[in-house]
């Protein structure tokens, strides 16, 4: 394992070094020490490497990730795993607002809680949250799965397209055009796989599925008030 001390080496060297692994893998396991809430740690990675961050982070951790596994051993600030394409981002603590925003692939696991706008405009990413999530989660979510082992806040799935939402606890309110759905065997299977991969101790049968009512796909003047 190679170690990078953020305080000594600085953010630019850290990201250049990790991004260079896409050309040639020097080591498949890295650790970042002294993160101290810094922004934009381990962004733009594109190699099958493991990166452990030993502490809490600030804005935009592991943004645009491809292939890499990034493990934050603390909590993450706003915009963690934004626009992830593939790979895995694991947060031991909580995540701040818009975790996994616009993500197109890969798996984001948040062991604690996620705050507002988790999975906003998700486009294929899978997000598993061990705790609860805040308001406006998965706003305009297009595809992918958002799994919440705790509760969801206001306006879950507002204006969503084909993203699926699985919530074990309560939902404070559903957003426009989001509705409760039937849990069919194929959904239980997807959910089981995601829970297993995320290492969450929860039974798929305990969850409720939500998704788009598909009434707002095309403009209809009768729905003008809902837009």
């Amino acid at each position, binding site marked *: 394992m190679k170690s990078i001390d953020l305080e000594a080496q600085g953010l630019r060297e850290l990201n250049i070094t990790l991004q260079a692994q896409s050309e040639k893998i020097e080591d498949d396991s890295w650790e970042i020490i002294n993160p101290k809430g810094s922004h934009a740690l381990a962004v733009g990675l594109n190699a099958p490497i493991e990166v452990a961050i030993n502490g*809490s982070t*600030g804005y935009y951790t592991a943004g645009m990730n491809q292939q890499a596994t990034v493990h934050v051993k603390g909590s993450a600030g706003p915009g963690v795993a934004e626009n992830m394409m593939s790979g895995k981002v694991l947060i031991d603590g*909580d995540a701040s607002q818009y975790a996994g925003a616009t993500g197109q692939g890969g798996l984001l696991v948040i062991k604690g809680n996620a705050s*507002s706008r988790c999975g906003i405009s998700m486009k294929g990413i899978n997000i598993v949250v061990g705790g609860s999530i*805040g*308001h406006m989660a998965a706003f305009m979510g297009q595809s992918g799965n958002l799994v919440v082992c705790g509760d969801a806040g206001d306006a879950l799935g507002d204006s969503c397209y084909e993203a699926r939402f699985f919530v074990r606890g309560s939902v404070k309110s559903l957003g426009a055009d989001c509705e409760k759905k039937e849990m069919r065997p194929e959904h239980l299977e997807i959910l089981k796989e995601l829970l297993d991969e995320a290492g969450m101790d929860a039974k798929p049968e305990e969850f409720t599925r939500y998704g788009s009512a598909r009434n707002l796909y095309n403009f209809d003047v009768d729905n003008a008030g809902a837009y």
Partner: protein
Amino acid sequence: MCGIVGLFIKDPSLKPKLGSMLNDMLITMTDRGPDSAGFAVYNDDGSSNAKLTIQSDNAAEDFAGLDKALSDATGTAVSMKVVDTHAVLTVDASKLADARKALNEINENIHVMSAGESIEIYKEVGLPVDVAERFGLDQMSGSHGIGHTRMATESKVTTNGAHPFSTGVDQCLVHNGSLSNHNSLRRKLRREGVTIESENDTEVGAAYVSHQMELGSTLGEALESSLDALDGFFTFVVGTKDGFGVVRDPIACKPAVMAETDQYVAFGSEYRALVNLPGIEDAKVWEPEPATVYFWNHK
């Protein structure tokens, strides 16, 4: 974008270190607000005295002989400690209102930053590191303090546009965000006799909270009603003589992190501001919920 930091000391042995801890937190938030900075420090010495913290752009001239002039005008002892562009005038608490009135008559170019038994507010244009150094923040002690680094959006970069704003005795408020109904609310508050000095949106928020408290609300109730009265984005941190409160608007897009240990409660716009606090590794760290009032009190 602006940066907010706040520290509420629970363990009295940390009081002498309040300034140095707040100083570190404030400077860390420089890139959220490099144009001006300010801070309120609450330090009640237990005496029957009250303090007026004043500011002048022409301090050398305006402060010369001011203590004597004020003493003559009010018929009471006045002491003055000049700190850069600011000065702290100490008078008997019963004479605070008289002293403030007399001060305005002596020289209307002098701005009152704060008035109260415990509060002192210092704020200026410039990088937070320079502002903090000019006023010697790292040497200050106190029971709680609030700091702000400003990136101006709603009004000019001036001393009076910097935070904290104080619109009531021993009260202050700092703000990250922008209020969109501040003009109509300012007119309404002025009609009700509230003094609002600047065109800044935050001062209106502070004046609203102070006015509610004058009408009999507790700080918690005043903050609760601000959620309905104010339109816009805000994370507010407020201070009173004994307390420290936090509230975020229902959308909550302005960041906020809190930490609590047996020794303190801390607020930061970002976790970065909290990383050097003692025992932060084992602190309870959380993001305050939207539209929820948090409040801590010394008594």
